[in-house]
């Protein structure tokens, strides 16, 4: 039997795949489970004019906007939650440097599902009566069921050039497991994408999947690239292995009360470090990682 082709790439190789002007979807939700090691690598490439789709996001959009990579954000919510608003994102939108296409969570999910299923639309009651419909007359159409006459919103497909999600483990063939289960909307992001990139905490043998096939999340033929990135969601969480780094978010928001401090923080702790290990070191290294690690059994 011929050897299988390996889908394993480095963070840098994977980030090289994204051209200027691409439409990319990013997984995770708010402070949880975003593919941050990939996002940082992409931001450092200074790719241009991206359309970034993220259902509920914060720090991934913040960093890509700060690096000047983004032309348009397509999202339901961009904030750093209890820590505060996303300062760079907010400033860029208010200065007219970045366009924001606001959808709601569910209309975005329906648009990604329509793309994944190759359907003309997926219906929902979400958004009826709100101003969001008026923002998107062609992609969110107010229609009525021909039989019951019930109104609904027809969410048209939102195909992604690339979908990037973070997971627990993968084989080099591209089977992927989110352990113990997929919780966020990552499934829609992965399925709506022409090319799906998955960063994982660790690479495991193919036999791991064969031994427990009920626990495979994404099958290999739907995954194009896998990247080994331990602590790859940092500073967001990777449930149940580590939590988000509250100290990081507190100091990030604090630094952004002053432009000079913000620039210093950005170059010292986000953009400057060369490589994932240096980035983790710049944010406290082992001490920080031990403080956010969780007991999983």
């Amino acid at each position, binding site marked *: 039997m011929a050897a299988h082709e390996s889908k394993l790439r480095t963070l840098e190789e994977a980030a090289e795949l994204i051209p200027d002007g691409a439409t990319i979807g990013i997984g995770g939700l708010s402070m949880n489970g975003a593919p941050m090691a990939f996002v940082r690598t992409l931001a450092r490439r200074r790719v241009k004019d991206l359309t970034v789709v993220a259902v509920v996001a914060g720090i991934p959009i913040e960093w890509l906007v700060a690096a000047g990579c983004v032309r348009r954000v397509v999202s339901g919510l961009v904030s750093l*939650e209890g820590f505060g608003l996303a300062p760079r994102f907010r400033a860029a939108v208010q200065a007219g440097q970045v366009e924001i296409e606001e959808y709601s969570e569910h209309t975005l999910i329906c648009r990604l599902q329509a793309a994944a299923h190759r359907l003309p639309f997926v219906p929902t009651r979400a958004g009826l009566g*709100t101003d969001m419909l008026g923002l998107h007359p062609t992609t969110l159409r107010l229609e009525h069921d021909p039989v019951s006459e019930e109104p609904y919103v027809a969410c048209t497909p939102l195909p992604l050039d690339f979908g990037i999600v973070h997971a627990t483990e993968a084989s080099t063939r591209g089977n992927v497991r989110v352990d113990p289960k997929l919780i966020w909307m990552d499934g829609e992001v992965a399925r709506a994408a022409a090319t799906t990139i998955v960063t994982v905490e660790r690479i495991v043998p193919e036999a791991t999947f064969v031994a427990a096939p009920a626990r495979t999340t994404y099958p290999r033929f739907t995954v194009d690239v896998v990247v080994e990135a331990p602590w790859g969601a940092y500073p967001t969480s990777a449930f149940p292995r580590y939590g988000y780094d509250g100290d990081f978010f507190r100091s990030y928001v604090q630094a952004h009360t002053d432009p000079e401090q913000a620039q210093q923080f950005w170059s010292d702790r986000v953009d400057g470090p060369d490589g994932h290990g240096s980035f983790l070191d710049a944010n406290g290294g082992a001490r920080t990682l031990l403080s956010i690690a969780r007991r999983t059994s």
Partner: protein
Amino acid sequence: MSDYSIDELMVVTLAREFTNDTRAFNGAVSFVPVCAYLLARRTHAPELVWAASSIAIDANPAAIPESTLSDGLWNGASMLSGSSYDFWSFAQGRRYNTFAFRGAQMDAYGNVNNTVIGPYESPKVRLPGGGGMADLGCMLPLIYLWSTTHDPRTFVEKLDFRSGMGWGDGGDDRARLGLPGGPQLCVTNLCVFEFDPDSKRMRIRSLHPGVAVEQVVEATGFELPAPTGPVPVTPEPTAEEVRILREEVDPTGARLREFR
């Protein structure tokens, strides 16, 4: 009971609205309703369903973290439900029945704005976005609103953007759109608003202790109907409710993040 603060009065007032039939979940920055669900479950509504972060059903956290959408809130859950399939079908299918939201602006019909201040294309302030409120305001029959900043900038006659659906344009607007129920009440730091059954506009249900009608009228940017008789005072929390809230539900005072 006089030893309580405004955050405690608001949480207790909201908690008393919930029952054993309440099946709720929460979104981002929702410290007040999260405290209220947990308090109601510990006092009069032990069967109440609450999915922490819309994910962790029956969670029983030891404390509330900085993010109400984070796994720090999930301890003790009996199920971690997946977002896309489980959650959205339970919400749109009305297995859940209750949702609470707030906005930077609210109008008399309980519609909210969390998108922009100023024009959408060139905003004076870019807010976080509507997130799930545009969805859940349409899907759930029992909607509760709260605000820790009762002032004319928050309670406005006209929203700059309608991110979340309350009673819409009032009257039977929701029913005409095929939407169930609607906002039940709005708890603020000054009073409790309810909705006129016909017009669906807010009116004062009760004033918090020490607050006068004129104060509420002045702090509200839309017109309020003049009360027809004496206005009730919001019932005070009991010592036991305050103790449970302080010691068991929210020992670190996470709810105070909404009162800064």
